[in-house]
């Protein structure tokens, strides 16, 4: 087990390292960062002063190492546009996106687990076919179109929910649905396939033969086997949601990390874009690592591999 954890940790750290190199070089591919800070009308002296101030005149490797050393301590430099520490900007935005991501994942699981289990139990029935149909339709629905349709229907026509902002829980209802439904088809198919596999296996037949109650057979015995792929995919989906929150947050003016990422890209505010990319990647790496460890705890066979 220890060896397994160590191996996974090393590969997670290496991944983050490569991501940091890529993120850093992206900013320097974008042209002279000094001009980006100073603006296009700035004089040559101004640009030279800014270049010296931000250290853009030093060798690129040195700049990268300096950036990394600071990033590890949580210092991502100053925003070019807002002239505030990037870490401070992130700290105020991050909770909103995390809440949105977690709520969306819960929404997706609450929808997909029961439907997937039901479809597996009543395989080939109307419920099953309806679930598969919903999965196919859901996968084709563009997130931002659904978001706009919900605004037209729930905010403008019915006037039930506020169009935008982040002042109350009501502001989170539509973004949660818009972000969460996209993960639902994959999770539901996975649950259904896993449950069908489990229900046909010998140990479930044994469980039925022992006369266990259906609840116990379905949830304690069969579902446990389904949970392993669900945990992995949920982790990946949560990571994808944090990244995908850009469109949803932009539409609903929910001012989280995604909104900030959009805003920073529009303004070419590179330190902010770099920091957000790195943080979302770090979350993804952390989530997949956590999922692997949870699965190793759920299924001892994984620890050896």
């Amino acid at each position: 087990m220890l060896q397994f954890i160590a191996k996974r940790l090393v590969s997670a750290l290496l991944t983050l390292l490569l991501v940091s190199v890529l993120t850093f070089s992206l900013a320097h591919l974008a042209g002279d960062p000094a001009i980006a800070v100073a603006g296009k009308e700035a004089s040559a002296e101004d640009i030279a002063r800014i270049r010296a101030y931000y250290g853009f005149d030093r060798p690129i490797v040195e700049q990268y190492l300096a950036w990394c050393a600071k990033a590890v301590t949580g210092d991502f430099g100053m925003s070019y546009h807002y002239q505030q520490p990037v870490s401070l900007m992130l700290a105020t935005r991050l909770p909103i996106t995390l809440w949105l991501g977690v709520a969306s994942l819960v929404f997706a699981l609450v929808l997909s687990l029961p439907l997937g289990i039901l479809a597996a139990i009543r395989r080939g029935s109307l419920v099953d076919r309806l679930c598969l149909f919903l999965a196919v339709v859901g996968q084709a629905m563009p997130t931002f179109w659904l978001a706009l349709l919900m605004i037209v229907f729930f905010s403008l026509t019915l006037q039930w929910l506020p169009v935008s902002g982040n002042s109350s829980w009501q502001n989170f209802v539509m973004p949660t649905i818009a972000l969460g439904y996209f993960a639902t088809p994959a999770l539901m198919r996975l649950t259904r396939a896993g449950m069908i596999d489990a229900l046909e296996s010998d140990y479930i037949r044994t469980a039925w033969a022992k006369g266990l109650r259906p609840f116990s057979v379905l949830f304690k015995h069969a579902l446990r086997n389904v949970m392993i792929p669900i945990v992995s995919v949920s982790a990946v989906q949560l990571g994808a949601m944090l990244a995908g929150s850009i469109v949803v947050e932009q539409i609903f003016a929910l001012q989280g990390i995604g909104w900030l990422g959009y805003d920073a890209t529009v303004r070419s505010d590179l330190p902010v874009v770099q920091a957000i990319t790195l943080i979302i990647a770090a979350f993804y790496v952390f989530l997949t690592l956590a999922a692997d460890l949870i699965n190793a705890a759920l299924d001892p066979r994984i620890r050896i591999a």
Partner: protein
Amino acid sequence: MGDDAGRTAELVSARRFARRARRNTSALVGGAILLAVVFIALAAPLLAPYDPYAQDLSRRLLPPIFFSGYDPDHLLGTDGFGRDYLSRLIYGARITLLIGVSVMVISGLIGTTLGLLAGYYGGRIDQVIMFVINTRLALPVFLVAMAVVVVLGASLWGTIITLGLFLWDRFAVVVRSATQQAASQDYVTAAKSIGCTNRFILLNEILPNVMNAVVIVGTIEMAYAILLEAALSFLGFGVQEPTPSWGLMLAQARQYLFFDAWLLYIPGAALFLVVLAINLFGDGLRDLLGLGEEP
């Protein structure tokens, strides 16, 4: 006893057949819609009633046919610049298909190559390629794509290249495991024993056997590329005005949300229909090629 087993086998194959037939309807429906869209895209100059770029500010925001007071000259109405909505929708199909197919080809080439190499050689090469795949998965596609588009300049080809360089991960993962399976087959061992080069084995023995998987992943990535392009264009980081892209049409429809929400319905429905058709077609294909539930 033997009779029982025979009947079970018969029942199983009957059920499989029924399932295939049902899925085939989805392949048929999806394929038919796709063919229609391809036809519309190719014949756009013949089908579109107007020039999709021609503005007529005296005829702005005319309602479409399913509303009262529509103009028989503009069946789907006109947009905020007075451009014929039907013509823009028809030309938009070209952009959508061009993006879907080009991104699929670029990412398919990258992903299949990586997957073949990792699956066939294993060892160090596999480790390095898996590491690259994991890194790619950790990068937030949408944000990085936005940033890269800013660097390359927002344009049709900028969007295609960016997405092509990002959506190869599923190809690589799927082809890698398909290659691992194929490489352990007897015909590969036989080819090795008669002295075939690795290059020959990869291209002539293994590639044809993983092509099914590549095609299935291709449909998934094509649908994904279309959705991403629409979202990028929607936020202003993709195809630029005045090119008729469905995502861009949705972006412009946004300012008329309050009074002319129909501007939103038409391009969105087109986008939804095309992606649905690709998904249905892919699902049907997956079943026809006998590749199980998920690739």
